[in-house]
């Protein structure tokens, strides 16, 4: 009589659990400060605990000033990124950390009497006709958590809205996300409109339907594979790197 799945003792001829093989040892983050209050801020970020960050930030702003608080928040976030890179953290831990970070950041900025200088300005959107926005949202959270100003235009955004937002905000970088073959043509249109208006900046495009081949077929386009790379793109663009150089760095053009 034929056996059932319950009778199989060893599944390795059918599949191999590589995830178990490569699972990292759980570990915590490094301390970022010897000061207990600052370390509490960093730990709150690492743990994604808004309450802890909120309390510790209040105390530290008074004791150390808002600039130190901001540095500490960023240092905490750096530890989070390391844990993610090593597979100890998954994305939700990173998002929760970035939520917590934003709580602290808002307070510190208020204490400074306005927005702190951001590392650069990024306009983000999903293509006209496209409502797939989760990839964009993740990228936005990560870029924001790395100290950039994000202008999120949302999804199903008309081309001229994007162009206007770029000009109005003097953006260093614009990003587009599309998950449908029939919406991504909006990117080429935006690129043309920008050219006509004499605006030139890197236009990082990603999303399931979008291919490197397509994105590199119009001017300014730089293809993004994963949301994780968002902060890297923002940093390059803000530092003044041209779209041509960014394309050469990030894309493997054939």
């Amino acid at each position, binding site marked *: 009589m*034929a056996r059932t799945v319950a009778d199989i003792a060893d599944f390795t001829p059918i*599949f191999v*659990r590589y995830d178990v093989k490569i699972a990292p040892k759980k570990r915590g983050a490094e301390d970022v400060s010897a000061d207990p209050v600052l370390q509490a801020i960093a730990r709150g970020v690492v743990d994604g605990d808004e309450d802890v960050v909120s309390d510790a930030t209040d105390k530290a702003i008074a004791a150390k000033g808002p600039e130190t608080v901001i540095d500490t928040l960023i240092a905490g976030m750096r530890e989070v990124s390391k844990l993610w890179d090593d597979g100890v953290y*998954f994305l*939700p831990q990173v998002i929760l950390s970035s939520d917590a970070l934003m709580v602290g950041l808002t307070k510190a900025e208020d204490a400074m009497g306005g927005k702190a200088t951001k590392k650069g300005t990024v306009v983000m959107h999903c293509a006209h*006709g496209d409502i797939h926005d*989760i990839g964009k*949202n993740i990228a936005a959270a990560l870029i924001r958590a790395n100290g950039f100003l994000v202008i999120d235009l949302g999804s*199903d955004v008309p081309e001229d809205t994007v162009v206007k937002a770029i000009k109005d905000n003097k953006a260093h970088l614009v990003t587009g996300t599309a998950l449908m073959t029939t919406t991504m043509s909006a990117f080429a249109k935006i690129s043309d409109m920008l050219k006509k208006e004499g605006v030139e900046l890197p236009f990082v495009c990603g999303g399931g339907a979008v291919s490197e081949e397509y994105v590199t077929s119009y001017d300014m386009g730089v293809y993004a594979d994963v949301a994780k790379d968002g902060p890297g793109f923002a940093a390059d663009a803000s530092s003044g790197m041209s779209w041509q150089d960014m394309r050469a760095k990030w894309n493997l053009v054939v």
Partner: protein
Amino acid sequence: MPKYTSMAYKSWDDMIFGTAPHPVSIGIGPIELGKKHVYPQIVPHPRPGSEATKEKILREYQRMTDDALGRCVALGFPGLVIEFEHIYQMTSQPEWAAAIFTQAKGQMQDYYDKYGLKSALVSTVADLRKPDMVHMRHSQELDWMLASFESTAAGGADVLSIESMGGKEVFDYAVQRQDIKGVIFGIGVLSSRDMEWLWQKIVATAKKNNITPGGDTDCARGNTAMFLAGGYTATDLPHTFAALARACSAARSLVAYEQGATGPSKDCAYEDPIIKAITGVPISMEGVASACAHSEMQSNIVSAVVDLWSNEAVEYHDMFAGSSVEVFTEILGYNVAQMNAAIELGTAKELRDINIASDKYRDVHGFMLSPDNAYEIGKAIVSKVDSYYLRSKAAVLKTADLIAADKKLVLTEHEREALDKARKEVDQLPDNEGDFVDMCLSEYKKVPGFDPTSYGY
């Protein structure tokens, strides 16, 4: 409408591909689903640029349709279901959609007249109501959708389906934070309520046009979680968490059938084995042949109890063997030929069990969709009939228990922690829907764009 209170099968072992307790006949021939036969379902997508004008898009659909039908005849496939998942430009322009459907139906009739090839056409209207942007019950987008259901039904569609969007705003917020409470609220409560409201309209349109109300899928939520979970090397979301989200999907997608849908279900509803266990409707599923559309960890096991076998979606383009539509029609056709051969040989259960063994322990998603487990989850759902919330919660708890209890299912430390954490949070949730909803309405106020009146609150 009453809710399901019992199972369609006495035992999971009675479930098998190609047979359903409540068969459905659709289209030209007709295609009989659930009567000891599995049919292929091809879903083609137009190329970028083809949406530019009505003439171009009609040509594109004409070619894709001809490719699919032609390949069936070349290789001897007995029948084919074609699904057009509307692109934005179709649902927002119901007269385009109508023209596309009328043209395809004409081609299908020609192939039937010339060769005897059976076929049927599914209209899946795009749900353009992005809940954080438009009101679910009063908006231009809703009007377009209803007009497109109507125009494609009149134009030749045999089945009306949708991937409805309710609860997506809350779900998206919650899933990114691994928050099971928000997932239950978004899928189990909000999406179910939206479906109850929307499906009465879809069923009425189908009845009026004398065609079939098909089904709905938790794609917008269940599949988002599943894609985020990804393969063994992904670190976007724990697989155990995605499996718990899928349990809610089953409690939620059931609503379509409670409102009068009869199947075939939507292909991308991975919760369908649970739905079939409860309702007995014929289900459409996608697996190995939908590798063109997305990657997944349960490509064989999902065929165990399928009635209509789909590729999810393939973009039209050239491959060595012809167009991608021809290629995937061919793959689907041979996949179902294997299943139908097993039926004719009397070894269908052997084939089913082989496909189960392939993936039951590869990943938790395949594990919970394994017919035995799917059946148990279904039982948990029908045991809580008085509340969308409670049946979703019951599904989640049962799924967590099944995962935790099976010794063959190996979990990494991170996966097990995610499971335990979610389980603990669910245990602490209120015992009745009212309390739960009050709690969630207050907590998820913070979600940008969340508007309780979209759901009748």
